[in-house]
């Protein structure tokens, strides 16, 4: 992979994890600024204008979710959160507060780099202005211009809700969307507690677009958290 001319701020209180992350990232040619506490991290982000932040939710001096909220008042850079397993509630809070993605400890370097690449690419490609009205994932092609979806060159008929759901996932491709975020995007506010709608329509989308709906390759479930489109 081409080396990314990127700069990452790493906010993590554990020295060994910082060391592992720094080694992995620097091996990929990424510049790393380390911060041990939330305050140091905020300062580092303010002074160095990084391309991405890696944030451990369990910080000694402040709540990670609160840090994300503060950061989101003035910064749009991608935030990748590190969290322990079986703390889905914390992950959802972080994502709803504005984090872009999460990694569950323990994780491998390939997993880390895959996530970082997706988010750096999204940032550098400026996904809010796609250059082409076509989006590909697997055998599926979505033609935004003609509102047409094909799978293996066969037209797939989607209901308006399904299409809306799909475009919401595509807009945030690679990013985790929580149930609340998806419900708000597709049904608008006021339906945040009806997550079973979402599950049913997600099921329909998978039936229509996935080769094996029971083992989705693209419309991936993040159990207890939300969904992610993997292209």
């Amino acid at each position, binding site marked *: 992979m081409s080396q990314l001319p990127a700069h990452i701020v790493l906010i993590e209180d554990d020295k060994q994890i910082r060391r592992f992350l720094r080694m992995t990232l620097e091996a990929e040619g990424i510049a790393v600024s380390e911060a041990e506490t939330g305050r140091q991290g905020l300062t580092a982000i303010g002074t160095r204008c990084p391309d991405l932040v890696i944030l451990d939710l369990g910080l000694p001096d402040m709540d990670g979710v609160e840090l994300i909220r503060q950061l989101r008042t003035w910064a749009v850079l991608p935030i990748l959160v590190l969290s322990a*397993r079986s703390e889905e509630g914390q992950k959802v809070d972080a994502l709803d507060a504005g984090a872009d993605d999460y990694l569950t400890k*323990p994780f491998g370097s390939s997993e880390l780099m895959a996530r970082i690449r997706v988010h750096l690419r999204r940032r550098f490609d400026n996904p809010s202005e796609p250059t082409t009205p076509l989006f590909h994932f697997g055998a599926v092609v979505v033609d935004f211009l003609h509102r047409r979806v094909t799978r293996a060159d066969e037209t797939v008929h989607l209901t308006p809700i399904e*299409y*809306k759901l799909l475009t919401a996932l595509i807009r945030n491709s690679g990013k985790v969307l929580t149930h609340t975020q998806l419900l708000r995007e597709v049904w608008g506010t006021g339906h945040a507690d009806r997550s079973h709608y979402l*599950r049913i329509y997600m099921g329909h989308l998978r039936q229509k677009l996935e080769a094996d709906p029971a*083992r989705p390759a693209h419309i991936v479930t993040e159990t*207890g958290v939300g969904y992610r489109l993997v292209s």
Partner: protein
Amino acid sequence: MNWLQRGFATLTGVDKSLAGLTSIVPPSLKSGAPRTRWIGFGWAILACAFATVVALTLRSMLDPANLVLLYLVAVVLVAVRFGHKPGILASFLAVLAFDVFLVPPYHSLTVADTQYLLTFAIMLMVALIISHLTANLRHQALIAHYRERRASALFDLSKDLSAALTNQQIADIGILHLEAMFLAKAALLFSDRHGTLHLPAIQSDPSRLPADAMLDIAQQAHDQQITFGLSDTPTADNVVYLPLRAPMHTRGVLVVVPENPGQLLLPEQERLLQTCAAQIALAVERVHYVEVAQAAMVAMESERLRNSLLSALSHDIRTPLTTIVGLSSALASGRALTDETRRELAESLQEDAIRLSNLVANLLDMAKLHAGAVKLNRQWQMLEEVVGSALSMLSRALAGRRVDVTLPSSLPLLDFDAVLMERVFCNLLDNAAKYTDSNSGIRIAAEIAGGDVQVAIEDNGPGVPAGMEEAIFAKFSRGEPESTRTGVGLGLSICRTILEAHGGRIWAENRSEGGARFVFTLPLGHPPADEAPDPPESPKVDFPL
């Protein structure tokens, strides 16, 4: 013959008077009440008068010697019914009446024929002997009756006590029986570990509680193991204090306040009371040791769990740690290793680290589930989604295996905690992967059965060892204890805990064609309407171009 027996019983009145006695305290054993005695004397006179009237009508037909027998019957009846003294009175009256009315010259005490003097003497002797014997018979019957009542009261007490499970129950049963048996108020005071007596914690009637002064005497009785209040150590207020002496310890004190002072001083009553106290003491000791045994069982069980946890940890944590330390030191030593070797070392390191991580995750899950720290986050979910995410999480462990998933399209939404249910699938699939060849197949199937959804996960492995189908769900248990396969035997126990929290069940069986089948159920419940409303705005979507 029944009517004959009944008739005799009615005539003598033995059964009737015995049946009327409910207490085992015999009020008339020493001396009958004066009223009954006077009635007895009256009846003695009446009986002799009646015999005389009958005899007078027969006087012309029968010899006087034969008429004597009529009087003897009267004496017997009086003695049986009213005891000794009326019997003696009847004996003398009978001789007198015989002399006056039946022996010529009539209506005078003088006797024409001196041989009648012998008749009188023998008649009196026979009457006295008969009245004595029959009165004794009656006394014996009464005593036998009281003995039988005592025995059955003791039997009832020990029968009820044997069913008692707590000290409170013993106190209730003991007091109930003692108060009925001795016509007295009773209280049971139990001593604690330090030998201090305590008033019962629960007492329905506060007036029954012994006064403080009584508590002091009771404590004394307990400490010195001496009975107070019986004939050898009388107390001022006639209250009886009996220490509850059991083989191992004195367990408390029985306090008895008799309604009629002195009635407990009869030797037989004293013995009975002491027997009751001994019975109660035994029951208290039995309850105590049942509790001790239960505590020991609990301690043994937790000891067993701790031991299996420790042995599991020492084996399953130390093994990967040993390899991790070894492999990483090989890497760190800086010796010239080929790139191929380096890669292999690193991969082994990774594998062992992942194994450790899974182990810790399971231990944490178990600890949390058992500490009750996990609150179910139930939502209406699609089973398919959880199966999919579990399969993708385990893609590494399942590498190369064919997994067939057969979920009916009609499967409704189910109400469960997705994260926990994903753990169930992961643990079951991980087991299937662990115990089967890397090229064998695994099947996941679901069907609706009654009010449940039944999910089965099948493999082609060796199956569950016969007889272990239930035991493998216990904590720290494994199908093959000496297996080299990793794991501490928590996975299935976690599955069961999770499913039971959801109102479901899980069990294991062997497939007839070979391999294991794990089946679990989840209740169907009442899913919400499955059609979502249309989005509020028009279906035209604005998306950036």
